[in-house]
């Protein structure tokens, strides 16, 4: 059944690519990466979060299901080990129709910081699109990237890096548990009250000197340079 769904999505994706190709100039053949991305359903729009929804750590028992997904260096494709984990997670989500997941994408420190923020989002999106392919409603999946800002392992070793290249899950169980945390302001138009600028190093102040009461020193200044 899953295979059928995959084929259906592939067909759909080919249709989309074909349509896009017709709309513009002939496009070069899609690279394997593009085809892969097409298969995974990348262009399902994200849904806005319900205002004030809070995500927390899963219970100890659920944490055994909602395990991290690990990635290869500079990649956002789900590996075979990750696919197995995602099948468990999809089944878990289908049993709990009220639950929502926050998918956190992380990177190791080896990429550039800027690119890693984008890569972390790609990893989270990759997890999301895979879960969507396993029949999880995309409205229940929310992505966030932290780039390389939150490593779980601090050493500069492959052992550590491989643990840091990951997607992690936070959960909102729905119903009673959906407590408000941070109410975000109305988007876009909101002009927020600005917090004070914090001056960290006061510029050096010139010490006060005795007021000599002299004025009109302008003439003297020029004289000085003509002496």
């Amino acid at each position, binding site marked *: 059944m899953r295979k059928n769904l995959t084929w259906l999505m592939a067909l759909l994706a080919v249709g989309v690519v074909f349509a896009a190709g017709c709309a513009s100039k002939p496009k070069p053949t899609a690279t394997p990466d593009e085809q892969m991305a097409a298969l995974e359903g990348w262009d399902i729009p994200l849904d806005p979060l319900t205002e004030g929804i809070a995500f927390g750590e899963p219970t100890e028992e659920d944490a055994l299901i909602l395990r991290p997904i690990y990635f290869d260096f500079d990649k956002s494709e789900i590996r075979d080990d990750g696919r197995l984990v995602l099948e468990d997670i999809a089944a878990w989500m289908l049993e709990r129709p009220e639950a929502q997941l926050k998918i956190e994408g992380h990177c190791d420190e080896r990429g550039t910081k800027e690119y890693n*923020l984008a890569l972390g989002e790609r990893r989270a999106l990759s997890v999301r699109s895979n879960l969507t392919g396993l029949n999880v409603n995309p409205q229940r999946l929310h992505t966030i990237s932290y780039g390389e800002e939150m490593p779980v392992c601090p050493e500069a070793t492959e052992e550590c890096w491989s643990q840091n290249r990951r997607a992690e899950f936070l959960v909102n169980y729905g119903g009673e548990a959906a407590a408000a945390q941070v109410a975000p302001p109305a988007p876009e138009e909101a002009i927020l009250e600005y917090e004070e600028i914090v001056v960290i190093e006061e510029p050096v102040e010139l010490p006060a000197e005795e007021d000599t009461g002299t004025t009109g020193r302008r003439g003297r*200044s020029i004289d000085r340079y003509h002496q």
Partner: protein
Amino acid sequence: MMGKLNNIFFPRAAGVLLGILLLPAGSVRGQTRIKVSGEYAPQLTTAVVDFEPREAGEREPGAVMADLLLDNLLLTGFFTPVENRQFIADAEATDRRTGKVNLAGWRAIGADVVIKGSFSIAREIVTIECRAISVSQGRQVYSKGYREDRARWRKIIQTMADEIVFALTGERGLARTEIAFTSTRDGEKKIYTMEASGRNWRKLGSGRGLALYPAWTPDGRSVAYTGYAYGFPWIFLDSPAAGKRRVLSSRPGLNAFPAISPDGRWAAFSLSKDGNNELYKSRLDGSELTRLTSHRANDCSPTWSPDGRRIAFTSDRGGSPQIYLISAEGTEREVRRLTRQGRYNTSPDWSPRGDLVAYTSRLNGYFEICVVDVNSGEVTRLTKNRYHDEDPSWAPNGRHLVYSSRRGGRTSLFVLDSLNPRPVQVTSGQDCYSPAWSPFLSR
């Protein structure tokens, strides 16, 4: 209140320096200032004498002024200091005794340039005067004085530093610019600004959450950045002087990498709201959202060309992250790959001066700063070390760059002259990342 500095000698409009001669006029005719062009970069060994109090009083402010002036000269990479302060003191003592500038004495301690100044403080007004003597040319090349509110003494010194750089090299100095960056000084990364020479840190706001990747508006009044204050990465625009913070984009998923167009009317950034990281632009109030890229790859880190018509960005559409160009009107058909060397090129920043894009390139396993010519595709490598140099940002003069470098376990900001790349360290003691150089600031 925030006017231009008052020039007490010459009318405000007079931009041209009037060199007042200390030496016979004959030795000056036909002299031109040292040109900075092409590959040539000056190396001027410079002695800055502590500024002299005009009336009996504390000498300390004069030393602080001389330090600030010297640091802002060194920032350009065009100057090296006469290191031995005793040499400077001795040569100055001779000048005072004889009542003139003894060129031979200054030449003997290796000085190409001598800078002297004086100051006085009366009530809340500070008067600072300064002159620069070219030892090799045997003439005074700069002489000016300013009278201002005492609180603005730094602005006077910075103005003088820029004027001296211009008088000696023809290049615009950088003393009256700032650098925005992130630092872990207070725990998680926040946005800070500082003077380009590394002094006078200010923390932008004190909101919750991580704050990353600052970018200036062209008027130098606002800084856009990616902030996690509300749990997800949103784009904010802070205008500290106006006391305002605006949410520029808060759509589902990633909102990141804002870059403001040179005319100040558009912001380009990445959003993942449609299921993938794509480039968009909008007005600074968030309206007129326009999608620029439509590709299943990872599109991020936009930067505007000086004419505002093109955008360079990072994309892995070819299989590895590379720099691409797209029309600012956003037509996928016109996307052109810019970098062709190496397997990992990110973080582009388009020079305000011309057709150069600086970026981070992974070379032999380490990140280095490179520059690519937009027209010819020619690549120039600016750093060659094993320190992980990242995130270049052009100075508003289009010649210097600031970037972060991981040396000795700490990440610090460095400045270099792209035509003569010898890094000058501007931060130490705190980890600093993601620098963004401001436009020229008149305040």
